[in-house]
């Protein structure tokens, strides 16, 4: 007998509702989350119930973009799902504190007094949302805007057919990854 796993989901009025997934569906979701996270240029919404196996990918990305991740978390509006689970948030804060101390002890305290501050938010590179990604469409979408880079080309719209595959800049389709309408490949 296959066991079914209960996941806590939220419906639109904020009350909790149980979403029942079979273990097979959970593995499917885990794979999808793994692939999306692997190919996305930014940190995606935390799926804490399936995150254990994606730990390594996330650690690497958090380490790469840590001041921006913390900034985003600070300015996140109430009710929007977090990009970080509580453990990840703690990790990011500690990493930031450690980097701060390290830079101070190794270099900054030897510099002239007016140069001893470093703005991590400005010096660490931001996630590049203009990166190109490959995707497969799971739910048909209409009128997706494509912005070509040169001035001579006009913006144009395309429709995304279910099952089709595309190469496009991440920025335009980022919300579709979050909603599950497309899968990064």
């Amino acid at each position, binding site marked *: 007998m296959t066991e079914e796993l209960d996941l806590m989901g939220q419906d639109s009025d904020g009350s909790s509702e149980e979403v029942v997934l079979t*273990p097979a569906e959970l593995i499917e979701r885990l794979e999808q989350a793994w692939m999306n996270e692997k*190919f996305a240029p930014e940190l995606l919404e935390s799926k804490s119930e399936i995150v254990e196996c994606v730990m390594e990918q996330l650690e690497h990305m958090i380490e790469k973009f840590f001041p921006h991740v913390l900034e985003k978390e600070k300015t996140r509006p109430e009710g929007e799902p977090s990009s970080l689970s509580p453990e990840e948030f703690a990790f990011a804060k500690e990493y930031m504190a450690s980097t701060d101390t390290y830079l101070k002890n190794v270099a900054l305290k030897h510099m002239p007094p007016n140069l001893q501050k470093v703005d991590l938010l400005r010096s660490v590179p931001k996630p590049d949302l*203009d990166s190109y990604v490959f995707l497969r469409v799971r739910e048909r979408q209409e009128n997706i805007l494509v912005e070509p*880079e*040169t001035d001579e*080309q006009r913006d144009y719209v395309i429709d995304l057919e279910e099952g089709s595959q595309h190469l*496009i*800049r991440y920025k335009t389709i980022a919300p579709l990854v979050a909603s599950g309408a497309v899968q990064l490949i």
Partner: protein
Amino acid sequence: MDAAEVEFLAEKELVTIIPNFSLDKIYLIGGDLGPFNPGLPVEVPLWLAINLKQRQKCRLLPPEWMDVEKLEKMRDHERKEETFTPMPSPYYMELTKLLLNHASDNIPKADEIRTLVKDMWDTRIAKLRVSADSFVRQQEAHAKLDNLTLMEINTSGAFLTRALDHMYKLRTNLQPSESAQSQDF
């Protein structure tokens, strides 16, 4: 993504085996399998089929499309068309490699099959190179790649996306705008 990771995904594909042992239905996270009875065909995921074959517990049946005449037709069709034709399986390359490496004794005309599949692969990769080239030359912002398998996308994908990212950055920095980031001293 490594080729090994793509192969990992391919190993979920179902293939038919003829076991030489008995076993009741087994309940795995990914789904139920079996029961297994000697001499009776049963469908299992590729990873299990290969494992059982290595332990000499079964015979493998080649998939219906793994047949010299059918593959010849597909190869000729692929050569004739300028675009990518649909492949018999989204994991045709991985299936061919794993089945021919571990179970060539169960597959008639294994060598011819290997050559035919390799021909199809080469033709498609050549087309991919040509279309990537014209994508870059014409500075397109979007490409549709239906009928390409994950392994083909993965072969040139990482390089292609990184190159496109760099080119995008170079291009957008040609036009003066406030969003261009530069270092302040």
